[in-house]
């Protein structure tokens, strides 16, 4: 099942010409600088923007093609806006029921109590939006969108208007959404850390066009894309908790390239988690030195590609057990090690961030 979209229109000097096919499951992040057309793409998918001659198919349903344009209110989608848009004249409960009431009972798949519990909005039900904090409003808005039992959830920078504390409050809910409901999500963002945490698939936009699109692990490590060249370039690695070490207070996780050792986390064995490994925290050596180093996470890897990051540094794309990773080293070191595609190396990972 996929989502296929093609929208092309010009408006006041801005040309929008986006074509994409993304899986109709998991979270697809639409990422790019502000003004690149991310929101326009989302609005076109929702039917709020009418792109003549556009094409949109979600799963086996055509929402727009040559013959038809399904109006927004007949598309089974949920939309979470950046500035929330709760109805000021209704209580939280009536806000939540607004969409629910308008969905035929036999097509409801998310119950009122379920959404209320998932987003912990029960204490807010009788209050009005004016009395809620930014984070609370956003939770209500997400619950309200879920209650229409959408077959596609559109989220337009749902965290952008929130302060750091409220972001921390919402992110766990987005993780749970991801785990507990099987609703595909198109998630617009310009924050790399949100994308690394939430996305399974990434669409990179630039100047009203789709620059590239693919699975998150590949996209983050493609040296032909700008993501791999920033100071914060990183790889996203899926790993499984396998053991805890009580003596040294550590947790072990495996991935196809080997075993990660991280500071102890209270996670059950068998749990799938996402790790972020920054390119600047990965150094390379030609031989394996398990003694004489404090670094615990060392993996055999193969150099796939080398690209200049800046005049003094290069970005090296590696694979360890088929899993892509990035390393940022000086050009001088790359020359001294004789790195070139195909060379076998050891990747020494100085630090790992675990996204529970």
């Amino acid at each position, binding site marked *: 099942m996929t989502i296929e979209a093609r929208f092309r229109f010009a408006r006041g000097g801005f040309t929008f010409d986006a074509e994409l096919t993304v899986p109709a499951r998991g979270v697809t992040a639409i990422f790019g600088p502000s003004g690149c057309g991310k929101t326009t793409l989302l609005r076109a998918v929702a039917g709020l923007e009418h792109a003549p001659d556009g094409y949109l198919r979600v799963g086996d349903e055509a929402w727009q093609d040559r013959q038809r344009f399904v109006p*927004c*209110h007949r598309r089974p989608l949920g*939309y979470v806006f950046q500035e929330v*848009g709760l109805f000021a*004249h209704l209580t939280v409960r009536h806000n939540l029921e607004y969409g629910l009431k*308008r969905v035929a009972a036999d097509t409801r798949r998310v119950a009122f109590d379920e959404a209320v519990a998932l987003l912990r909005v029960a204490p807010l039900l009788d209050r009005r939006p004016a009395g809620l904090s930014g984070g609370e409003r956003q939770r209500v808005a997400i619950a309200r969108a879920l209650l229409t039992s959408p077959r596609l959830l559109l989220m337009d920078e749902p965290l952008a208007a929130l302060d750091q504390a409220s972001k921390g409050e919402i992110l766990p809910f987005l993780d749970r959404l991801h785990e507990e409901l099987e609703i595909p999500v198109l998630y617009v963002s310009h924050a790399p850390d949100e994308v690394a945490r939430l996305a399974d698939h990434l669409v990179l936009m630039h100047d009203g066009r789709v620059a590239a699109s693919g699975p998150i692990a590949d996209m983050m490590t493609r040296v032909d894309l700008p993501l791999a060249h920033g100071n914060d370039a990183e790889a996203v690695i899926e790993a499984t908790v396998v053991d805890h070490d009580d003596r040294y207070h550590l947790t072990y996780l495996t991935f196809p390239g080997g075993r990660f050792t991280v500071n102890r986390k209270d996670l059950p064995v068998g749990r799938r988690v996402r790790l972020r490994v920054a390119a600047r925290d990965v150094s390379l050596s030609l031989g394996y030195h398990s003694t004489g180093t404090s670094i615990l996470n060392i993996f055999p890897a193969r150099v796939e590609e080398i690209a200049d990051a800046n005049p003094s540094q290069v970005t090296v794309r590696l694979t360890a057990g088929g899993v892509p990773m990035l390393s940022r080293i000086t050009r001088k070191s790359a020359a001294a090690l004789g790195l070139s595609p195909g060379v076998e190396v050891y990747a020494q990972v100085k630090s790992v961030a675990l996204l529970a």
Partner: protein
Amino acid sequence: MLTEADLTALALTFRLAGLTTVILLFLGTPLAWWLANTRCRCKTWVEAAVALPLVLPPTVLGFYLLILLGPHGPIGGAMQALGGQPLAFTFAGLVVGSVCYSLPFVVQPLRDAFAAIGPRPMEVAATLRAAPLDRFFTVAVPLARPGFLTAAVLGFAHTVGEFGVVLMIGGNIPGETQVLSIAIYDHVERLDYGHAHWLAGGLLALSFFLLLAVYTVNRRFRGMQP
């Protein structure tokens, strides 16, 4: 205090103002919504035409209405041809005149209230499966409530204070077209200042308290907004 004729004029005035307000809310709401949302170039023309009664001397408006509604005018003539009466010098004629005269006082607050809502709440409602009319009545109208209150009160109060238009198209027929402002004029002409005081003072107090009520309620409503 008030004479029999004064009370008749009072009742007539309120009947006229009430009916005019109701008609204006029905006509003015779609017009105001259109003005607030259209991108049509004719919008400025329509806006200017709607605002015309604000600046036009009521006698001018009354004069043209008299011509239109009278037995030789296109509307009055047509009414007569259809077996009806021409509208000039009737209560129905006053209603038509008042609707024209008070139009901007209803349309402008509504247009501003609709414009202040902006497109976003309606888009949100659309993503929550509300069809256009459904979202108009469940989102736009409740959010524009202060605008409706202002529009209704201004439309009512302004019609109560109408003089020039009534004089031109209604004349001064007690029980049919003699409204309060004209009754006051009659009293003053006859140097009957006592009765004029009662009516004028009453009108002054009524107008003030209506406006006070509107501003108080709207202020509370604004406190509710996020």
